[in-house]
């Protein structure tokens, strides 16, 4: 049976053990109202910041017009690379839910010129 003594510093728990509570130590762990408000404000600010970052990222993705028709390069090396980029893009979309803008084909001029 639980019982608390008059000073509120000792009680017998259900197992019948007597437990001493250090009220001073316990009180040190309790946040004051100001501290609680500050902690809550910090949490809210952090959530808002994350939300803002997400919103900016979404705007960037939307601005890039993910539905613009894709133009495939004609050069075979550029086309191979572009197809790979498109695969990465669609896989990312599949995982994250946002398609993102189509990659810009890289113009590689070095090939064939050295020969």
């Amino acid at each position, binding site marked *: 049976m639980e019982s608390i003594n008059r000073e509120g510093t000792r009680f017998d728990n259900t197992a019948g053990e007597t437990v001493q509570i250090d009220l001073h130590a316990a009180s040190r762990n309790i946040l004051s109202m100001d501290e609680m408000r500050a902690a809550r404000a910090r949490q809210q600010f952090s959530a808002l910041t994350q939300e803002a970052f997400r919103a900016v990222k979404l705007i960037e993705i939307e601005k890039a017009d993910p539905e613009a*028709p894709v133009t495939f390069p004609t050069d*075979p*090396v550029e086309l*191979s690379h572009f*197809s*790979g980029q498109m695969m*990465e893009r*669609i896989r990312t*979309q599949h995982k994250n839910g946002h398609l993102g803008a189509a990659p810009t084909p890289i113009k*590689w001029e070095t090939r064939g010129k050295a020969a």
Partner: protein
Amino acid sequence: MSGLLKKVASLITGNESRDDAKTRATTALITTEITDRDLLRQESKIGATLFGPVPKGRNREFFCLDESTWIWHEEWRDEKNIERQTTVRYEIHPKGVLKVSDGPRYQFIEGDELANFAQATRLYYEETSKKIYMRDPHTGLKFA
């Protein structure tokens, strides 16, 4: 082999014991989780058909590993019933498409081989986009 070693080996080689595969399939069914490897497997099935029908008794895989690497893998049994396999890695470099075959042998592909490879990568994207990701490959719009 310990469980952990077995798992690492199966992740590296892609080989799973029957029990592992069964457990994985059951888990996937329960959680309907689609892993990257599942997607690659599905893509690879489409990729294998891009170069014409796969001869009977052969197992072919062709897939995009990342934006600049494509893998061709083929397994078959020869006339002496010995298991054979070959893996070719195509790396996209500014200078061209480097073909890395068993050996290893390195060679930049040219002419028809290069043109066919490039068309295969485009077809791969178009087909997987339509059949796996359910999107129009040209606009990115999701099919209704």
